[in-house]
């Protein structure tokens, strides 16, 4: 018994792009999102009463998409969390309106998540992801208190640094592992929008005299009464920097909820959740994926894959070259007591104690990696690399329910909503 609606998880560019196209093709759609407002990562909306810090072009893109959403009469259920789809096709929703749903198809558009490579001190209070800092900026329209250092690699560091400058609190340093300014030829091949955006960020940083270190790595973060200290290595040179808040960011990965792919209905992943290619690709992928799913559901001919995807894939490839660095090689030289799994505070020594070539089961059961609430979302990649696996394994062992921890109370509230349901 399947229902009539297509459920879209994630009200970002990809999810809403898909929803609009599905409705246009005659499907009924419900969109859920765990946050308080639609927007996703890129168009994260300010809290009620706060101004938006979005740039004009971004703001316009969002306004026009939302106009389409309204015109299509799409219902967006916010503060509603997707708990997973089970092997019978039932979806668990928790949060504002707990309950179960049997959609006719499922679109997962849950975006990307950040990768943060373990380093000594990365679990200290005051250390967070750059994305979390950015979310704070977008929702509060104000910078967090204290001296902020941003470290890791990728274009997000410069973007967040520029936003901090705009809000009047320039970061004390941007510590970038790659050498993005040393590849001008590759940079020139990027689509024009990318360069203009980067140039605007750089102008802000130069005016605010932000210290930008390239080919530099944060090797340790420590804490004392005065705050945090980051130790930075650049070739043979070392330096220390005092700050109160450290934002780390080592790239983005698809936030594919890690669910076993056995649902008896069509399930498609769109946008960053399928392939982390950024905002421009996400909207195109969402729209295209929505049309393709609608065609599949109605048995008509599917449209071709979006050209925009190819373009953005090329651009991301160039960015990867521009930001290429040896950061991941540093994993092997980490001190043995470095925490790898922050859920259960398992260290590199704990991993080594498993002996050579541990199986996935040994990593999980004996090492207890990937056994905590995050189910390895954050550590699996590094543990697999350190265990000598080749290839981009982002999980240890089979995917497990639920997509994210759910409270027992929420599950029972959902169960309660079944009562009085017609059979």
């Amino acid at each position: 018994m399947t229902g009539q609606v297509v459920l879209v998880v994630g009200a970002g560019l990809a999810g809403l792009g898909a929803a609009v196209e599905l409705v246009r093709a005659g499907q009924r759609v419900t969109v859920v999102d765990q946050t308080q407002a639609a927007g996703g990562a890129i168009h994260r909306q300010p809290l009620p009463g706060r101004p938006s810090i979005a740039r004009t072009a971004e703001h316009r893109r969002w306004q026009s998409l939302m106009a389409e959403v309204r015109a299509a009469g799409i219902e967006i259920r916010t503060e509603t969390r997707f708990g997973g789809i089970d092997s019978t096709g039932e979806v668990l929703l928790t949060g504002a309106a707990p309950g179960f749903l049997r959609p006719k198809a499922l679109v997962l558009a849950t975006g990307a998540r950040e990768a943060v490579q373990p380093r000594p001190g990365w679990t200290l209070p005051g250390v967070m992801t750059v994305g979390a800092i950015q979310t704070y900026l977008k929702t509060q329209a104000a910078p967090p208190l204290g001296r902020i250092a941003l470290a890791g690699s990728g274009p997000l560091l410069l973007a967040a640094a520029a936003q901090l400058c705009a809000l009047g609190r320039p970061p004390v340093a941007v510590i970038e592992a790659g050498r993005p300014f040393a590849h001008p030829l590759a940079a020139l091949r990027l689509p024009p929008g990318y360069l203009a955006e980067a140039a605007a960020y750089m102008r802000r940083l130069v005016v605010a005299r932000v210290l930008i270190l390239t080919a530099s790595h944060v090797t340790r973060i420590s804490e004392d009464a005065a705050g945090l200290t980051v130790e930075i290595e650049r070739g043979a040179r070392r330096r220390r920097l005092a700050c109160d808040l450290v934002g780390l960011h080592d790239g983005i990965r698809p936030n594919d909820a890690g669910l076993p792919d056995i649902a008896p209905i069509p399930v498609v992943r769109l946008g960053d959740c399928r392939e982390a290619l950024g905002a421009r690709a996400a909207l195109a992928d969402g729209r295209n994926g929505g049309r393709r799913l609608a065609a599949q559901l109605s048995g008509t001919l599917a449209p071709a894959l979006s050209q925009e995807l190819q373009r953005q894939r090329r651009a991301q490839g160039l960015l990867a070259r521009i930001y290429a660095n040896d950061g991941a090689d540093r994993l092997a030289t980490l001190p043995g007591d470095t925490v790898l799994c922050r859920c259960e505070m398992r260290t590199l020594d704990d991993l080594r104690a498993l002996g050579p070539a541990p199986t996935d089961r040994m990593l999980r059961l004996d090492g207890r990696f990937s056994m905590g609430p995050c189910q390895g979302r954050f550590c699996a990649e590094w543990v697999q690399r350190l265990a000598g696996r080749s290839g981009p394994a982002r999980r240890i062992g089979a995917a497990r329910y639920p997509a994210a921890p759910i409270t027992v109370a929420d599950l029972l509230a959902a169960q309660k909503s079944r009562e009085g349901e017609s059979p």
Partner: protein
Amino acid sequence: MTPSPDIDVAIAGAGVIGASTAWHLAQAGLRVAIIDAEGPAAAASGASDGAVSVASKKPGVMARLASASLAHTATLAKGGPLSRAFRRRPSFLFGQGPEEAAALDALAAKLAQIGGPVSVENDGGAALLPGCGMGVDRIVRLMGEGHMPGHKAVHGYLASAGDRVQRIWPARLKGHEADATGVTLDLGMSQLRAGFLIVAAGLGAGELWPQLPLIPRAGQLIVTDSGPAGVLPGALTAAAYLLAKTRDGAPPPRPPVVIDPLSTGQYLVGSTREAHGDPRLNDFATIAALMERAAAVWPPLLGRRIIRIFTGVRAAVADGLPVFGTLPDSPRVLLATGFEGDGICLSALIGREAARIACGDGVTAGLEADLAALSPTRFTKHARWGAA
């Protein structure tokens, strides 16, 4: 010409049965290799609860063997291979309504008949367990049982055996040829010659001997996040679970929940018996029904988050008894499989007895009749066993 053996005993399957057998053989000074298609604790032993329980066994053979295995497990836990795996703790069985009450009566009678090491310490109302909630008419508190997560037992046996046991994985036993002096194992890419072969491959044994009536029985399990440990001093099991295990087939009157407090401060809540073997299958309706009863009986669960739901698959046998013994037509090959929901509990005893048979010592005195009841000869009217 058959080659002389590379090793004395080869064991196929590094679950709790295989690992226990390997340790017991190494203790006896034999050259042992353990082979697994994936690695240690890759199947049921890595996806189970781990109650070492006599209470839950069918009366008769299984209850007697479980009782003897519990005693041996406790010995191996005293400074031995299971010292970090096995933990003694009280167990609580609870019931609501007449059917569950009858099951608790039957339990008390069964334990009295076996006469230890497990005994009823107390039998009364909900007041027996401070903190328990509604939906409990009666609680029986048992002394003498324990808990042993399967993977910890596997780890304990293999770590304690050290390099006295050769580990070969991933490697799948694809077939074998037994003769007068030993057994040649076909491992696909290679061969191995052993004096004796023990197949402890769980459901994998069914691929080697299709005539074995092995059936998969899936069970869904729920793990919560951690909180203060020790609030619940032992497993809390619904009498419906006893009914589910003893009355094969008939659905229990209420969800057959088991609430197990783990040493990590997490709760493990189980479980079902479903007629399939796909570890990817979970459904929210079943999980919610289990959790509903579990939280009604043990309200502190309401403050926890569910961090993992998974399915483990047990290897069951059509007639409800495990398979243990040498093959009728090849005395150098021993089968040990089909332990369904009791393999963790029985592993200490089965490993010891398998090792005795492989050493040519015969089984421990007093266990002959009970172990004979498990022999694979019960399925051999006409089947040929020798070459798998």
